[in-house]
């Protein structure tokens, strides 16, 4: 049986879950589906008020299907009264968010610490 390569690694600290994408390139529908299967249980297991930070440090390339998954995730997080932040996005990937105006709906931070600090502040 072919070993399954993990799509994300997850760490928990206080009231935050940090999910780091493993793959450099996230392109095909099948990869996005696999990623969704990996990350949705993490989102669903978060208690109310938890922060989810998605770490893009390894991501060098992604397709528009990934943007769709992020929107799906954000809806799920907010349904559970959580907060979502994205961080460590390289300039070329950030440009994709900017061009598609997704910078208006996602909170994007320089790094994990900034994300957790900002999202921990009461509204």
């Amino acid at each position, binding site marked *: 049986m072919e070993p399954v390569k993990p799509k994300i690694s997850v760490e928990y600290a206080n009231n935050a879950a940090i999910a780091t994408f493993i793959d450099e390139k996230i392109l095909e*529908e099948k990869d996005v589906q696999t990623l969704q299967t990996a990350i949705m249980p993490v989102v669903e297991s978060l208690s109310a008020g938890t922060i989810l930070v998605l770490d893009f440090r390894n991501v060098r*390339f992604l*397709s528009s299907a990934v943007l*769709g998954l992020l929107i799906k995730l954000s809806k799920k997080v907010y349904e559970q009264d959580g907060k979502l932040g994205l961080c460590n996005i390289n300039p070329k990937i950030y440009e*994709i968010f900017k061009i*598609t*105006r997704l910078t208006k709906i996602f909170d994007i931070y320089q790094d994990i610490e900034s994300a957790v600090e900002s999202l921990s502040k009461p509204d």
Partner: protein
Amino acid sequence: MTSKASINRKIVVESVPSAVEGVFERILAELKANNFSEDDIFAVHLAVEEAFLNAVKHGSKMDPNKEITIHYSIGADEVEISMTDQGNGFDPNIVPDPRCGENLYKTDGRGLFLMRSYMDRVEYNKRGNRVRMVKYKNKKLK
């Protein structure tokens, strides 16, 4: 004045996303060898991946028995890539702007927009099953 293309190729692949991995790697390597910038290479890479995924999903309806034909030519100052699927085609003019209103919150519909944003020319044939994309060297993003 258009430069004479130094590379001109035609490849036919099955409608499976993994079918083009080697093809696109070769195109990007040839762009690098022809002194296209990293920004241009990224732009072309993004556009061709989106175009191919659209061809597989919407053109071939995920049928691996359907073929997609890729033509590309690389000149000193430009790269042109065409993709033709065996589907019925579509009208690209009715695809909504994914940045507007409720579309911003939709989970799909950004592929064509990204192709148009990152390439300098994106044109479809009348039927809508063939897209021609051109990137001029070192032209800034829209």
